[in-house]
């Protein structure tokens, strides 16, 4: 095989992995949108908040230490313990569940029946609030997240692919991030678990019933409030997974919350209401933007990844307004 072809393959492989990470974020959106019709802009900030909390708990940071020091004039910053990753993750999940309950009780309980745009705005308000809250709680400096995931490229793959090149080609093998491969596996497991949960457990079925029809679900005795808290908790859990993956990759920092924006075109492409859509959309966007940057990017000055996904989704939607797997939009007068 020629080196150029192998390079293209490498770009595609990396695109697929990036797509999985986009899909992870998009999954959280789909969960909430299906069950409550809320388009949750705060999903990215939730990922950031979850990752911040995880780092904070593992490192034994004192929450709000900056605020406490400013008001009381003390100098506290760490409890002085280091917890193992697993304990940290469990505690963070507990906090995300608490957060889900809080969001449902304080905000969305009062907004039932409002127009979608109002709900959307409320989640943007929530995103603003959490951004400030997370920074105030754990400080706004960039943190490294170390939960024992391997870093760097995979030597095995590099060695294998080196032999693929044709004789005489200068080719040094593919660079594939170990972390990306683990993220792919985790995403696959997560999606499988979510599908099993929603198909075979009582709560999962209740969740789907609520997604189909609120009133009908209410009338057969499903507790809407509980289901919504459950959905927000699940979204919080997905956000934590996404936060761990992205945080381990590029540090826990503000830009983590912007991955929500990356997940939007994925959603559009796949359809807002479809879990497989989120995965397939993520893969298409990931591969598409990497290939575009690889082929066309150098001609127009690079950094096309910023907008390519949106333009692709836009063009796609012109031909299929409900996305790949979205429910068909039927309009009646």
């Amino acid at each position, binding site marked *: 095989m020629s080196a150029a072809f192998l390079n293209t393959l490498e770009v595609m492989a990396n695109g697929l992995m990036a797509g999985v990470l986009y899909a992870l974020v998009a999954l959280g959106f789909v969960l909430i949108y299906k069950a409550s019709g809320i388009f949750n802009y705060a999903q990215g900030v939730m990922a950031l908040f979850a990752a911040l909390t995880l780092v904070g708990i593992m490192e034994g940071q004192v929450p709000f230490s900056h605020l406490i020091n400013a008001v009381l004039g003390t100098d506290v910053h760490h409890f002085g313990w280091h917890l193992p990753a697993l304990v940290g993750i469990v505690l963070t999940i507990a906090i995300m569940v608490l957060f889900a309950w809080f969001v449902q009780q304080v905000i969305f309980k009062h907004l039932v029946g409002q127009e979608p745009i109002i709900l959307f705005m409320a989640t943007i308000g929530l995103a603003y*609030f959490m951004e400030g809250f997370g920074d105030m709680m754990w400080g706004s400096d960039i943190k490294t997240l170390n939960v024992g995931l391997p870093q760097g490229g995979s030597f095995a793959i590099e060695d294998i692919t080196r032999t693929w090149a044709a004789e005489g080609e200068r080719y040094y093998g593919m660079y594939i991030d170990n972390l990306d491969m683990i993220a792919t596996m985790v995403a696959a497991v997560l999606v499988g678990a979510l599908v099993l949960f929603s198909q075979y457990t009582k709560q999962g079925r209740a969740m789907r019933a609520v997604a189909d029809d609120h009133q009908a679900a209410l009338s057969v005795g499903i507790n809407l409030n509980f289901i919504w808290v459950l959905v927000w908790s699940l979204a919080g859990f997905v956000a934590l997974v996404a936060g761990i993956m992205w945080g381990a990759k590029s540090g826990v920092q503000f830009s983590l919350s912007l991955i929500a924006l990356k997940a939007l075109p994925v959603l559009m492409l796949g359809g807002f209401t479809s879990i497989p859509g989120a995965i397939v959309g993520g893969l298409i966007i990931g591969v598409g933007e990497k290939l575009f940057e690889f082929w066309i990017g150098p001609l127009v000055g690079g950094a096309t990844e910023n907008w390519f996904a949106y333009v692709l*989704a836009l063009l796609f939607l012109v031909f299929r307004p409900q996305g790949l797997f979205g429910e068909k939009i039927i309009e009646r007068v």
Partner: protein
Amino acid sequence: MLYREAGDYKTSYVDDGQSFPIKFDRIGFYAVLLVAFAVIPFLINSYWVNAIFLPFLIYAIAAIGLNILVGYAGQVSLGTGGFMAVGAYACYKFMTGIDIWIDGVQYALPPINIFFSVILAGFVTAFVGVLFGLPSLRIKGFYLAVATLAAQFFLVWLFNKWEWAYNYSASGQINAPERGVFGIPVTGPATEAWATYLFCLVFVVILAFIARNLTRGSVGRKWMAIRDMDIAAEIIGVNPLRAKLTAFAVSSFYVGIAGALFFSVYLGAVEVGEAFGIQKSFLVLFMVIIGGLGSIFGSFAGAAFLVLLPVLLKNVLVGGLGWPTDLAAHLEFMIVGALIVTFLILEPHGLAQLWRVIKEKLRLWPFPH
């Protein structure tokens, strides 16, 4: 007692169709105009102008523009920042003289007066807005909102990479040269506070007047018909293509003018990703929502609220309590977010709805019912 229609007899159709049918409103409106034009320019200094009045006036224009699109025509847009960037860069090119390169030779138009530069920038933005509005014929609701993000990211990227747009400057920034109207500078480093204020105020008053009358007229009714249900509107004879595209054009025209003023008069130097990023789109959308969808007054109220709030918080927290600035910034995020959510819960129709309720009460006062 004062605030009612009774006793204010209209004797002609022109009287009957005026913007403010209630005398009290009319007098109040003229009083506000008088204060804005004849009193404030003598009182303000550059701190007040730069911290409060200029951002308020410019954001008010942007909010009116977005309100036309979102509030009247029902097409949610998150591309405001990108369209403001188009206005800013177009204004810059018109101010410095548009140049064309043919075979390595530069042919340049003479620079255009800043007043007309701003207006022409509006027209350029209107054209770009129509272009990005075309998909709205097929895409609706949230899908459209996300689709307009394409405009946001693509345009910001474009102005980062397209050297012609920033006259090949090494820093990639655009800087407003000194330009003036009637010999008084309104852009550049040596401006008087009152001159920049009046320059923006003139735009605000004219544009608000046009917007108010557009939305009351047949164009506005078509927009609202499309917003309420586009299929039904089509059946009663509204052309959805025309209505949606005019909404995008008018809205982008306003947003473009706001962007041009934001760059040339307010900031003076602009780096596109920083000044016109996605945050700007959300900020203007917040103004529209908090102010009230489908209300020109609401656009002003929302702009005033979101311009004043950070200034107020900063003064209280950093100036009053002596907190570190980063802590104050975090708290500001929390408070803005919490306020937005509170507002949506208590009054989803915004400040304009509060004002309507107050007016209803005033009509009846002093009787309870």
